[in-house]
């Protein structure tokens, strides 16, 4: 713990640190590849939409006295039938004498397999099963209203970040990081083939909120450091990079604290329960929150520096910082009779930006 604590102090003072900004091209490339994979998965495999979105078929199975055990047994039987559209059946008792089973729309052969599994388990004849088409409970209107809400929120949050930090470039960087997180999360769903349910939608929205939240926390430190750019005699990129490093301990701690419970749910959902709606949701949250912390540090801040680098003041500060560095590297540079490249030890307090 002692060494770790020392690291915390060094990160704060800037004696040690990872130059995220200098390595931004690598970080961009990593994210670009991840996003490309996600987009590929989306377009190639598509999303596995649940009954709530697609509608489906409902079977009503008469049983002598309906108990939860009957429902559980039938659910297992439908799952074991291995039919793709029946991988997430919604099974519940209905009244005292029936169990209802909802599955996605099935082909004739698949329907026959499912019916057989039900008949064998419930010990009824196929004629006793009633079967009906059910519509989607997630109507188009809900989706449209949710999208309108999202659009309004995005516009407002852009304005909010702009107003709070007095910097529209931070809004842009935060939005890019947000898109990054959401696309990657949705890509995970495409690749794993997990069913997309209304709970998934709330999961993605959680990530949306978390991603912006985390970015604002990091940017708050960036703003603080860069506001003091002149006094601290740093360039914008140095100040921003220091801010990221100073909040690095927070980022690591926060992601651990947020991810540990989700990880536990994911583990229980996937390993102990063996496939459940819980596991699908936990995976989305896990990936999305990890991406959210990552993107605040590795995407949003470097991107912000890139955007800011076109500004005259920032360029000037960069020039001054370089000049100072030269001066620090060679305190006698201005003194005649000494060579320009006279070797001297690096000042530990200054991270040379052009050293890599």
């Amino acid at each position, binding site marked *: 713990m002692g060494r770790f604590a020392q690291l915390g102090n060094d990160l704060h003072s800037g004696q040690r640190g990872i130059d995220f900004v200098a390595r931004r091209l690598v970080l961009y490339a990593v994210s670009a590849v991840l996003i490309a994979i996600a987009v590929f998965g989306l377009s190639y495999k598509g999303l596995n939409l649940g009954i709530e979105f697609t509608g489906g078929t409902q079977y009503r199975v008469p049983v002598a006295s309906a108990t939860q055990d009957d429902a559980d047994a039938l659910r297992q039987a439908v799952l074991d039938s291995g039919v793709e559209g029946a991988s997430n059946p919604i099974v519940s008792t*209905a009244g005292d004498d029936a169990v209802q089973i909802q599955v996605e729309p099935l082909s004739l052969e698949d329907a026959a397999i499912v019916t057989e599994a039900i008949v064998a388990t419930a010990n009824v004849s196929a004629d006793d099963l009633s079967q009906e088409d059910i519509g989607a409970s997630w109507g188009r209107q809900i989706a449209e209203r949710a999208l309108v*809400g999202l659009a309004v929120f995005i516009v407002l949050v852009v304005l909010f970040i702009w107003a*709070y930090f007095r910097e529209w470039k931070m809004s842009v960087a935060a939005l890019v990081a947000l898109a990054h997180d959401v696309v990657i999360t949705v890509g995970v769903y495409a690749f794993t083939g997990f069913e997309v349910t209304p709970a998934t939608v*709330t999961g993605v929205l959680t990530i949306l909120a978390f991603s912006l939240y985390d970015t604002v926390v990091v940017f708050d430190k960036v703003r603080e450091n860069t506001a003091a750019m002149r006094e601290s005699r740093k360039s914008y990129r140095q100040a921003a990079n220091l801010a990221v490093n100073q909040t690095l301990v927070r980022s690591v701690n926060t992601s651990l*604290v947020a991810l540990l419970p989700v990880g536990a749910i994911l583990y229980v959902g996937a390993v102990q329960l063996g496939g459940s709606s819980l596991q699908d949701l936990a995976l989305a949250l896990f990936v999305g929150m990890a991406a959210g912390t990552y993107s605040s540090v590795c995407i949003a801040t470097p991107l912000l520096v890139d955007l800011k680098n076109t500004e005259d003041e920032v360029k000037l500060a960069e020039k001054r910082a370089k000049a100072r560095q030269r001066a620090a590297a060679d305190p006698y540079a201005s003194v005649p009779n000494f060579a320009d490249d006279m070797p001297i030890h690096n000042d530990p307090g200054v991270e040379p930006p052009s050293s890599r």
Partner: protein
Amino acid sequence: MARKTARPGRTLVVFFLVMAIAYGLVALAGTWKPTLGLDLQGGTSITLRAEGDPGEEALDQARQIIDDRVNGSGVAEAEVTTQGGNEIVVEIPGENARNLIETVQRTAQLRFRLVACSTVDGRCATTTGLPEGIQIDPSTTLPQDESQDGGQDGGQDGDQSQGGNNRAALGAWARLSDTQGDGADGADGSGGSGGQGDENSNGNRNRNRNGNGQQSPYDACIAAAADDETTAEPLSWIDNPTTACVDAFSQFQASGGCQQGATSVMGDDPATPLITCDEDGIAYLLSPAMIEGTQLDDAGAAIPQQQVNYVVTLSFDGDGTEVFADISNALVGTEKQFAIVLDGQVLSAPTMEGRILDGNAQISGDFNETTANSLATSLRYGSLPIAFEDQPLVETIGPSLAGDQLSAGLTAGGIGLAIVMLYCLLYYRGLGTVVIASLFVAAGITYAMVLLLSETANFTLTLPGIAGIIVAVGITADSFIVYFERIRDEMRIGKSMKVAVEAGWKRARNTCLAADAVSLLAAVVLYVFAAGVVKGFAFALGLTTIIDLVVFFWFTHPMVSWLAKYRFFNKGHRLSGLSPETLGVARTATGGNA
């Protein structure tokens, strides 16, 4: 600021008092277990079967409207689906959802019509004295000051008492039913009985006509009204109603009228006149509809200032506002009424008390909170395009998740949070106890809020909801982490703990306020715009964000300030989490500046 920090103990005491009050409320509500959602506990399923063949589009539209009604606040997480082409299935968490059937089923077709006459004002009663076969000239019989027979006297009494009440009535409109008792009494007392006899003979006449194989008086009314040019101008039509309709109205009264329990003998067609009743058994002859319920922009339930009874407030859209202003101009200062007709029944037949030109009006009457809200909800979420058969199939449904999922999810979340606490303790040592205490407090408040909301707002916990809350508690810990890192940073640049706690607080507070503002913004915007499960999410997000801020401001910060008084922390004990070693600075650096 200084006063606040000087008395962190007092803030803590107040905080715990408020928490105790919250739990006191929970105890009053009497439930210690939250209402679980459909997936965990099951609920009630209502299957509504449409009359006839509604068509896919209308059925889906009805599904959407019912969805809006049951999920209006977004926290109940009811599911509404179509089934088999002519059925809508509503699944509502909890077994006591049967009282929702009324809300679900109400078709809520709201129309505004004008009153030509009613059993109370008796403006059509004069027709009863006329011989059979003679066309009535309504202009000679209808204006009240010209007709002075017995039946009309009763009506006048009624009108006067109504007018008297109108001046004292609530809001912009007075509801006639408040005064109906008086009016009806007046009619009975003074000559109303004579009129009744006349009407009976009149009714016999009409029945005879029916017996002779002619069309029913109601159909005759509709047919005649269709030919009558004034039908298109309801404002003049009420002064001069189609004769056949006046006849039909008389016959309706003669055959027992509203006493027989028939609310409406005619279909509620907006283009035709309508003979119908209200809840108190008053019969009305109404003009064709002037404003449709779809022309309402919004409806709500409220208690106007300085009043005690609920009213339903209405605001019309552009066209509705214009038409309503016309009605208002024509009716103001007269005894003429207009009628608000819901599903073919007169809900209220007020007179116009003032000119309402801005399209904002209110219905006052015998509303209590529930009935006012129910009506406002029905109006706001529109009318159903289809009617349903009576006696929907209602049954109890079981949970859709296997029984072990809830306990597994809770166990997993518990284990996860325990690891989080362990980590905080290892990393932050003494301060870790503050994190753990804060997490417990946050969890405690969240639980109390969930309990209170399940009682008051039908909030239900689904499995994804529980996962969301566990995640939210994890995110709550971020505020503390931001704060503690700030304190440590301040101490690293040489401030003493007492100073660092306050300096760090100021900076951490701003950071957390900004970040939480983003979350709150998301919550509010999504709650306002979205529907269904997204609305539920927004609600939960807003709730947990506010709890985060409350705990951070009124528990964590005073707690740390309070602890800073103790040597253990402010002298940087090895286990306090603030010792020079854990901060990674040389001891002299802190000591020197302290």
